């Protein structure tokens, strides 16, 4: 089977977000980059599905030239090849433009995909819609928030979603689109041989034209701080009586 997984390069934000001077991006001068957490699980699942059923896995990203770093990282985990839709780092793509570019890229691929995995939402923009738009354009079924995937012998796929009190199960024919959530699996760490192999794996690049955004970011704003007064209860084990006094005042004892 052929599995596609889409990822997005995002900064590792750490404890405090600092904006660029034009307030249109996070200042990343001191930050590393990763992919969205849900997508890490999508990548792990793609690798496992191919290990189990045979076939080929592809990782796709729409992002700046530097996003090749993330594609290599994902290939180091066992993904076979990559598709890079190269964008200008200074221009954000809205969800419609992103979905349309991904659809064009999928249509241009030599082999069709049986399963197309996305993160449930990106860590940064959190628009919750790219995969659903891709599914509609391609006329494929889509299930979101997936925490378990089983490919059945009859070319259908069982997709399980966590809901309060249980799991909802969807069984859909492939090809199908699924958005996954962290907790689907525990992603592996890259191995040294994996990293070496990743350097030689193929990346197919193209440069789509960016249309005018319909959801257009004007600027980013840091939410007002809580302005909290922090009461220091003490250092080390000596703080225990002060902590217990607080617990008592809060009515928790």
């Amino acid at each position, binding site marked *: 089977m052929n599995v596609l997984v889409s990822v997005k390069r995002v900064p590792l*934000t*750490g*404890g*405090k*977000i600092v904006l660029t001077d034009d307030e249109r991006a996070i200042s990343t001068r001191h930050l590393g980059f990763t992919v969205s*957490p849900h997508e890490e699980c999508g990548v792990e699942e793609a690798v496992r599905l191919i290990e189990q059923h045979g076939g080929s896995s592809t990782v796709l990203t729409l992002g700046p030239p530097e996003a090749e770093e993330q594609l290599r990282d994902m290939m180091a985990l066992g993904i076979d090849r990559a598709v890079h839709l190269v964008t200008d780092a200074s221009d954000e793509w809205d969800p419609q433009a992103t979905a349309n570019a991904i659809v064009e890229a999928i249509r241009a691929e030599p082999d069709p995909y049986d399963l197309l995995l996305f993160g449930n939402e990106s860590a*940064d*923009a*959190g*628009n*919750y*819609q790219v995969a*659903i*738009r891709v599914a*509609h354009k391609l006329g494929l*079924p*889509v299930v*979101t*928030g997936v925490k378990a995937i089983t490919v059945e012998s009859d070319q259908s796929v069982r997709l399980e979603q966590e809901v309060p*009190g*249980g*799991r*909802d*199960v*969807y*069984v*859909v024919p492939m090809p199908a689109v699924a958005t996954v959530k*962290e*907790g689907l699996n*525990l992603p592996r760490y890259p191995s040294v041989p994996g990293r070496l192999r990743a350097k030689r794996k193929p990346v197919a690049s193209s440069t789509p034209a960016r249309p*005018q955004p*319909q*959801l*257009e*970011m*004007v*600027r*980013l*704003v*840091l*939410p007002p701080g809580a302005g*909290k007064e*922090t*009461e*220091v*209860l*003490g*250092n*080390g*084990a*000596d*703080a*225990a009586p002060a*902590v*217990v006094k*607080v*617990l008592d005042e*809060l009515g*928790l*004892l």
Partner: protein
Amino acid sequence: MILVFAERSDEELFRQALAFARSLGDDDVLAVGIDDPAGYSPDAWGTALAGVTGDRRASVVVGPGTERGNEVLAHVAAMLDLPMAANCTSATSGDPLTLTRIRWGGSLLEEAQLHGSPGLLTVAPHAVAADPAAESDVVELVSVAPDGGVRVSERVETTTAGVSLADADVVVSGGRGVGSAEGFAVIEELAALLGAAVGCSRAVTSAGWRPHTDQVGQTGTKISPSLYIACGISGATQHMAGCKGAKKLMAINPDNEASIFASADYAVIGDLHEVVPAISAEIRKTRGGG
């Protein structure tokens, strides 16, 4: 006319969406529910909502910031090839519609313009006060074809033991500072004494020390306890997005520069492996003596 998608898996969030819609202007607000005896189908519900959107010539469609709210509105957006803004905290009608929405699980806000009519929005949870329940609430029900769409084929019930993380009144969490799976024994002991749920940070689940169901954060569980005790957690935005609903935050960390202290009501500077057992011992002493 402004339509509100009456997705009522969470009544409070539906009422917040209703209040949000009423704040948008003078237009009539109509709540539209889906009558589907066959259960839930995201695309069939999206088709039904897109249909009534056209019939009513809606200027804006507002959905609650629930999983299903975001999902069904995204289907409507895909069908009508219109832009959609998820998790808005405020909006002003107009052409274009201007709005503020959350990014990074609420650690950052985005001011944006939505070019397209009708405007499709969902409302970030707890960004606005809920509309009070009223007898006169009218929810128009729209039927869907029972055999259409991708549907739930089976519901597997799961039983959870102990206090659920999402509903717990007190949560005690451990982070990277716990050091190992075994290290959580001291966290579990304190949690048991307080009748609290045990949580953890993403570093812990990534290391395989705790299951993902224990993870508090943007991609884990979002909690809103009376008290959150964070032990050995640095306070990355990913984590804070999951615990910002806590009424009080107590942080225990050896690094007095840790960013979690900026959000803490109470701070203890120290190694959790010394501090947490001392707190448990002190609770026992207090209870034994009282």
